């Protein structure tokens, strides 16, 4: 009797069951809604953090490679030459742990997203310039290519994360455009070399920022109090 009841209910309510199993709606590029498989916030955050870690590691390796190949010795060791500083962002990025701890989760996530989105185009540009180098090692090219791809998936993950954690459905993923190269200088000239070197260094730094933000965010998710005690 009970079994019969539950079966009848199931038959009647099957659309609801279907929708319940899919809490998230994923939008592809065309904007149509497709069903996504659900994933928990923690797991998603872990994956995002892994992405960020990997991106940072690869960017660090690329920077070192580039530095060894093209940058003359006196200009090394992460010195920002005059005029070639990292681009400032739209909003201030917290600069210390205490500042970061004062920022809310929302702002942390948004900061990450902004950072990610700001680097998508420059990395594409960097790829094209590196291709023009005559003796750019293959590994360097592969790494930069990989980083730009991973950055896109990181962006997607952060968007989903924002949607999950903040219930903010307003953001959309950025489109990839074949941007116009702002600086059309000759490759392998010192200026372009230094510019590219600066680009890589700044990207490396920002990758570390993303990683740190996400890790701090993760701590907050698990144990808010202990995170702030230190």
């Amino acid at each position, binding site marked *: 009797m009970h079994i019969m009841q539950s079966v009848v209910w199931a038959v009647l309510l099957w659309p609801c069951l279907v929708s319940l199993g899919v809490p998230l709606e994923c939008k592809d590029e065309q904007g149509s809604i497709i069903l996504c498989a659900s994933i928990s916030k923690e797991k998603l955050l872990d994956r995002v953090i892994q992405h960020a870690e990997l991106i940072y590691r690869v960017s660090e390796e690329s920077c070192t490679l580039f530095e060894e190949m093209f940058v003359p010795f006196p200009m090394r060791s*992460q010195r920002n030459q005059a005029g070639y500083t990292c681009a400032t962002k739209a909003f201030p990025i917290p600069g210390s742990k205490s500042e970061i701890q004062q920022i809310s989760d929302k702002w942390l996530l948004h900061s990450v997203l902004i950072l990610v989105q700001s680097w998508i185009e420059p990395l594409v540009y960097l790829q094209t310039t590196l291709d023009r180098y005559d003796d750019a090692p293959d590994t360097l090219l592969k790494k930069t290519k990989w980083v730009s791809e991973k950055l896109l998936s990181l962006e997607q993950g952060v968007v989903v994360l924002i949607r999950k954690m903040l219930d903010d459905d307003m953001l959309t993923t950025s489109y990839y455009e074949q941007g116009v190269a702002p600086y059309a200088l000759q490759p392998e000239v010192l200026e372009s070399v230094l510019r590219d070197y600066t680009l890589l260094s700044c990207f490396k*730094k920002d990758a570390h920022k993303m990683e740190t933000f996400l890790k701090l965010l993760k701590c907050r998710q698990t144990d808010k109090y202990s995170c702030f005690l230190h």
Partner: protein
Amino acid sequence: MMWRDVGVTLILSLILPVVAQGARHTPPGKPKLTSCRSPDKETFTCWWEAGSDGGRPTTYSLFYHKENSETVYECPDYHTAGANSCFFSKNETSIWVNYNITVVATNALGNNFSDPVDVDVVYIVQPHTPENVTVGVLEDEDGPFLRVSWEPPSKADTRSGWITLIYELRVKLEEAEEWEEHRAGQQKMFNIFSLHSGGVYMVQVRCKPDHGFWSEWSTASYVIVPDYIPRERSMWILIAVFSAFIFLILTWIITLNRSSVKHCLLPPVPGPKIKGFDQQLLKKGKPEEVFNSLVVQSFPPRSTDYEDLLVEYLEVYVNEKQELMPEGKDLQDVGCLKSKSQSDNDSGRGSCDSHTLLMEKCGGVESKDESSYEEPELLQGQAGSWERLERGDSQVVDTPDSSDGRVKTWPLVFSPSIHGSSDNHHYGTLEMPKQHSTSEITYSVPDHLFPTSTSFPHHHHPEYRDSLGEYSEYRCSRSPSTGVAYHWEARHPTQAHSNFNIRNLERQKEATGLGLPPSRSMEYVEVQKVNQENQLVLKPLSSHGRGPFQVQFGRAGVDYSKVNGVNNDNVLLLQRQREMAEAGQYCNYREKEGAEAERYPTQQQGKTTKDGPVATQLQESTCLTTSGYVDTAPTMPTF
């Protein structure tokens, strides 16, 4: 003048050092920033080294400005981190921002700027060493192992994820030289396996942020590994002990059964054995003694009952050569006493079987040894029976030479050969035996080769008859000198009857025998009788007077006996010299057989030793024509 110069010089020399000393004070040398380090990514410290101080007390100051601003700040704290250092607290520290730092050395005379250094705190993180490094020994099924555990440096905030540290540890035996390094990742615990039992290990740990420098190694922790036996080794030890144990047991068992094992692995080669035959004596060269032991005194059986004897025919071997030393082998040296098996046509007797009947090598020694015969059992039975019979017979010939022994030679011995001229009557030279002594042959009739002299206990001995069944026995005797041995062969009874010439003797009182020149020691044998079963009962003539059937050889001195021939069945046909009438009967017999008597050419002496089948056909000699002898050589029976 000169004084003035000296004075000036003196004054100058006094003043100059003072002036010079004043001149050593210079602006300070250029200081140099050596390093800046941050232990926790929240604060950092910079160190510099001073240049020359220029002789004056010099002060150092550090100025910095951040990446995007031009505001220059001075170092907030010069003392916390020690001399020539600047410590930046949390409030002054910004990460992801480049600091441009400069150190200025100032003294009374001037100042000097160091080269500016760009520092991003993120990239200069070098944590402290891990803390609370503990090493413990734990037991596992494979043996003990080390468990190393530690904690991150207290200043590094790894809990909130601000810093992510990865660890590395290194291990070595105390006396070893090289460290063994292991990456532990982000975990705070590590296991080390495959330890040396009883060794002392040193362990150190260090850490590094994913974007910074390695920390210093922690202080060494010592640990002693207890003694243990590795599992593999213990298994091998067990196997070795077990194998040794089994090996010992096997050795003990083999030792106990030493003889049987030896017998199994190295089976003894059967050697020829003649009962009573002493090889040692033989080697010493005393054949007489050797053969003495083989003589059966009681042979031939002397029972008066000759019924038991079933001798079908006689075979005579002539031993022309003097052989004192038969070769120690069984058959040839020994008397060829062979019992013929039913299916065996081959005598297999070596020289004994030569058709010449001149068995030089036919040892007169007839051994009762079973090994020398094909059918030892039979022979033994026969021999025994002979013995028995012999004993019972008082008339049995004693062979003077032979001790008791077996009589190998039938007294009828004549030479098959040849030396004689054709005209001569071929007398069988039964010279025998006297000379050679018993060592070789034991003749039942030592000197008299009378067929009659030897009396065969003619009764069938039930034993051997039974054993033989259809038996034939054949004896060959050899004399060291040329002796001719008769072979009495007991053949198939059916055949024997017809062939048995000697049977005729039975009727006669005189048995034909081979006369031997009395000068030589010849034996006369008297055929006593031929019994119903065609057994020739011989009796030595000399030893006895006249037996029941005395066969006289005719005149004394005549040593030979005539052989009429050999019939088809290889039976010697003895001729009685005296009685031709009987010879006629012989002939009758022969005719009965349908065989023609022939004379066979005498065989050469040299061929006496010839082996091989004897001419099967023993043709009968002419009946009576000659008083001569028939060479029995060709008349050797074949088997």
